[in-house]
């Protein structure tokens, strides 16, 4: 049987506020356990929550960035459950009146098409603490530094139909929240956590199947694997005539296996009710407009501008615009010359490959955009050949000198573009290869002739010690051999 895959995501995004959502405790990462857990975070009797304005500002910025309606009057509710890393016995969240209403995000797919994924809503809530299950004499250790860290939980409609689409959406969202500065985007520290809802239905059917939720995926790779794994698991069950149980599953990426965490059949047992400690939060036009003013250029806008301003194709423009830091690096490089396409090739090619190989981010790169831009300018004006440029790049990366010109000079990589000198070299090489010259001239097929030119280039580059301008050599060769 053929199946349709239906995927919806819930994404927890940690907001980059200085303090918690309901207390003035710091949210800085990496502090000693429980040194950033105040009486409010510990749910001491007599404490009252006071919401953080910045958390609302960030949530509104997110809403504006995904074309959503902003909840003018949002209400906090209590979601009741018992777990030791949740001292109050309830999570303060928003159920019926979230801060961000319906919106959408457009994603680009590998085949060049794009797809709209609808956002159902996004609400503000608090994070829980951390449980450490290492052995403390048979007990569990609790660190409440994270308790009360502001989150927005973004809930999509079930609009994705493959792992590729879900990952493309996740990456887009990651790029968006990092670009607008509401989240540090550090997935290894859990700043974004993805829950994936998956169900299958017979191909073409309108009726959704029973879904499972795979929780807490914190890398794009695990997300892709977890989806593939769960789709296969459900397909096996359905094809054997079984039925899917609505449940929460945990995926272990290292072993590529999943297990049931808890049955969601008691889903309504959170006994939500409006939080009596908090009044409704009213957001007015002035607040929304001030949040709008803080929004930087969004990745989609930047992509459109890169196409328009630099004449880049859709693919390059997307790769360069997704991450604000790469975009800034590219623009710095372009600022040094005029050849945007060449600069794009170097940023996405040599430079990105090197970052990947050394597992570095753009910010950690040992060279700046303008250093790369100077090199690109020297390639564009034929001062250095592309093979010579790779040597210059290497030297820049290793910090041998701080600018391309100095390296070109020091390593003698300056390309010879003096036509007189090049013509002389061509004459000498051709004089030493009479048989090949004759073969070339007897060949009637221009395509084969073109191929045969390569046979002369080797000796020419050797004669010029690799410094002859290949383009000029080529022109001179064609002229001399033809005449």
């Amino acid at each position, binding site marked *: 049987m053929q199946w349709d895959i239906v995927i919806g995501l819930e994404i927890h995004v940690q907001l980059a506020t*200085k*303090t918690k959502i309901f207390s003035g405790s710091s949210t800085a990462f990496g502090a000693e*356990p429980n040194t950033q857990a105040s009486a409010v975070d510990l749910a001491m009797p007599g404490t009252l929550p006071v919401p953080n304005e910045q958390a609302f500002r960030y949530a509104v910025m997110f809403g504006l960035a995904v074309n959503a309606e902003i909840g003018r009057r949002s209400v906090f509710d209590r979601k009741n459950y018992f777990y*030791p890393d949740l001292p109050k016995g309830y999570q303060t969240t928003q159920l019926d009146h979230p801060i961000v209403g319906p919106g959408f995000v457009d994603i680009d797919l590998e085949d060049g098409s794009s797809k709209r994924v609808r956002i159902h809503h996004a609400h503000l809530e608090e994070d829980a603490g951390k449980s*450490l299950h290492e052995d403390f004499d048979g007990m569990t250790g609790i*660190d*409440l530094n994270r308790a009360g860290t502001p989150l927005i939980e973004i809930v999509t409609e079930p609009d994705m139909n493959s792992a590729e689409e879900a990952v493309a959406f996740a990456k887009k969202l990651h790029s968006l929240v990092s670009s607008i500065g509401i989240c540090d985007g550090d997935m290894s520290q859990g700043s974004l956590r993805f829950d994936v809802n998956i169900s299958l239905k017979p191909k073409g059917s309108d009726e959704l199947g029973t879904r499972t939720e795979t929780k807490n995926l914190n890398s794009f790779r695990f997300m892709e694997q977890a989806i593939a794994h769960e789709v296969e698991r459900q397909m096996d069950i359905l094809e054997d005539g079984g039925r899917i149980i609505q449940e929460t599953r945990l995926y272990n990426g290292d072993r590529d296996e999943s297990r049931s965490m808890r049955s969601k059949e008691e889903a309504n047992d959170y006994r939500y009710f409006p939080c009596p400690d908090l009044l*409704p939060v009213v957001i007015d036009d002035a607040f929304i407009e001030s949040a709008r003013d803080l929004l930087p250029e969004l990745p989609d806008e930047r992509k459109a501008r890169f196409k328009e301003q630099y004449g880049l194709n859709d693919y390059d423009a997307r790769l360069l615009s997704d991450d604000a830091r790469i975009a800034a690096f590219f623009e710095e490089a372009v600022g040094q010359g005029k050849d945007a396409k060449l600069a794009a090739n170097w940023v996405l090619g040599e430079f990105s490959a090197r970052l990947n190989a050394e597992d570095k981010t753009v910010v950690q790169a040992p060279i700046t955009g303008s250093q790369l831009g100077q090199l690109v300018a020297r390639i564009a004006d034929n001062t250095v050949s592309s093979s010579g440029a790779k040597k210059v790049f290497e030297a820049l990366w290793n910090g041998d000198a701080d600018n391309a010109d100095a390296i070109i000079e020091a390593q003698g990589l300056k390309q010879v573009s003096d036509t007189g000198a090049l013509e002389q070299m061509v004459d000498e090489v051709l004089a030493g290869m009479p048989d090949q010259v004759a073969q070339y001239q007897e060949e009637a097929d221009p395509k084969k002739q073109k191929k045969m030119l390569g046979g002369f280039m080797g000796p020419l580059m050797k004669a010029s010690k690799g410094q002859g301008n290949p383009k000029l050599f080529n022109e001179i060769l064609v002229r001399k051999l033809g005449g």
Partner: protein
Amino acid sequence: MTISREDIEKVAVLARIRLDEEQIPALENDLGNILSLVDQLSAADTNNVEPLAHPLDAVQRLRADEVTETNQREAFQAIAPATESGLYLVPRVIE
């Protein structure tokens, strides 16, 4: 309105309250009475009434994003039953 023994047992589990067998009949009666009262309230026509999120007719004030809390771990942990390496210790939880 009546409430079943199963409902009471389920609510007790969710609220982490241990019930003795003999307590259940009295609770069936008491909770049943409370639900009957809610039924009476439900009979009121609320078509033109805005749902109430809070009994006070006021809006929430927000706080500036500035660190105001200092580290009070020592004071808090002095009253905790068990701590180690700065962590609060609780009976082992395995999910």
